[in-house]
């Protein structure tokens, strides 16, 4: 897997504000239901994530896409992993990680380097920095492919979904690289 920064110094595109506002009123429980299935699948297929999380496995990570009106709160406990979607950050999160949705997805896939995003101020962390570091290293080692993981939720339609999402992802990455070359 080639990293994005192998050719790009530019930020990935943001979700248009209009789209963010349009999806803001959507009910959250259906999204939570789908994302919990997604989280279960990732953690059950990649149990080594818990080894690397170590004592931080039960902590609550608030993932805040800066271009979406939602916050994802993940509790990666081995026995009962849980993901909730909220509109306002609750005070009981151990750590908060903020960046654009595209950056967060690229981080999860290991296409971006977390330290580089911190240096360029595209990523902000608050709270338990040690837990965030453990999470970053656990995810980076897992070599997740989000298109394949989401595709896996769709049963017999999984392969076409994976191809569609993979093509969309690659198009976004290519557009960022093109913008960089033109700038």
């Amino acid at each position, binding site marked *: *897997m*080639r*990293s*994005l*920064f*192998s050719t*790009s*110094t530019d930020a990935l595109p943001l979700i248009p504000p209009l789209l963010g506002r349009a999806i803001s009123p959507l009910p959250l429980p259906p999204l939570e239901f789908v994302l919990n299935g997604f989280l279960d699948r990732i953690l059950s297929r990649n149990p080594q994530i818990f*080894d*690397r*999380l*170590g004592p*931080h496995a039960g902590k609550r990570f608030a993932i805040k896409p800066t271009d979406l009106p939602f916050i994802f709160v993940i509790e990666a406990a081995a026995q009962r992993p849980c993901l909730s979607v909220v509109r306002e950050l609750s005070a009981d999160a151990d750590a908060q990680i903020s960046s654009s949705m595209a950056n967060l997805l690229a*981080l999860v896939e*290991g*296409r*971006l*380097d*977390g*330290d*580089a995003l*911190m*240096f*360029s*101020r595209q990523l*902000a*962390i*608050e709270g338990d*920095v*040690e*837990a*965030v*570091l*453990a*999470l*970053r*290293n*656990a995810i*980076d*080692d*897992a*070599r997740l492919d989000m298109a394949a993981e989401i595709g896996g939720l769709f049963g017999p339609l999984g392969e076409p979904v994976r191809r569609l999402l993979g093509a969309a992802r690659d198009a976004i990455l290519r557009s960022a690289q093109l913008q960089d070359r033109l700038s």
Partner: protein
Amino acid sequence: MELICPAGTPSALKSAIEAGADAIYCGFNDETNARNFPGLNFSRSELSEAITFAHGRGVKILVAINTFPRASALELWQRAVDDAVKAGADALILADIGLMDYAARHHPAQRLHVSVQAAAANPDAIAYYVETFGARRVVLPRVLSVPEIAAITREVSCETEVFVFGGLCVMAEGRCSLSSYATAKSPNMQGVCSPASHVAYAQTAQGVSSRLGGFTINQFAPDEPAGYPTLCKGRFSTELGAGYIFEDPVSLDATRLLSGLRDAGVSALKIEGRQRGRAYVESVVRHFRHALTALETGGEADVTRLKPFTEGQASTLGAYRKTWR
């Protein structure tokens, strides 16, 4: 020149191999190595698998056991040496004289390298490690100019290895206690410089402030590039004014010095960054593989390519090209 690449996880190790590493250095997931960070490093079984994987692709594995043992816990470090040898490590990177003595006595056939943490920066110091323990290579501290590296390399009877990219430690490596004063944890004995457990960031209207062990050590304006939360790269107010008093947040990038390092007789080039992600490892290793190929073929390397990965979004030639004396 051999390209020595960092790996903090088995996945990063595979990325380094795919990108063109000749050798990879890594460590166990405990305080025996100088990058003892949460979620990082290798278990015993991961190291064995990594060595089998790397050797199958003609790549060497160097195991860093480069912290200094506590007198009350020598066994932890000695076991690390035994386990790395048993796993088939191509070399051990050691800093402590006692541990090097242990390795030389118990595993006389094992290749030993002197870690940068040993701060062996002159021919006499290096000769001691070579003559006493049979060390085959020394990793030189990042405080020497290229002519000084050339002079040392001519005089010593072992190989020399130098850093070409990444975090730039300008202190006497293995001796610096700045972080210890703020956190009560030691970079040299526990492998944690600025441990994440003692780091805190606060987002404010003025930007982000970084704290270490409760001390505010820097504040970055909203669009100002940032660096690691280390005291040596902190910004302080003194009688002489406010600013960086040890060093700026900046990364070493010696891409443009490769021919000089080759002419100096250097055997191996090292990339810092076992704490970094796969994207860093893949991109930086690939860059230097291309640069070394360009060096052989008379081509030119892109010297700006790695800027996104640099601390403070800035690079330096550091002491390699000294301008202050």
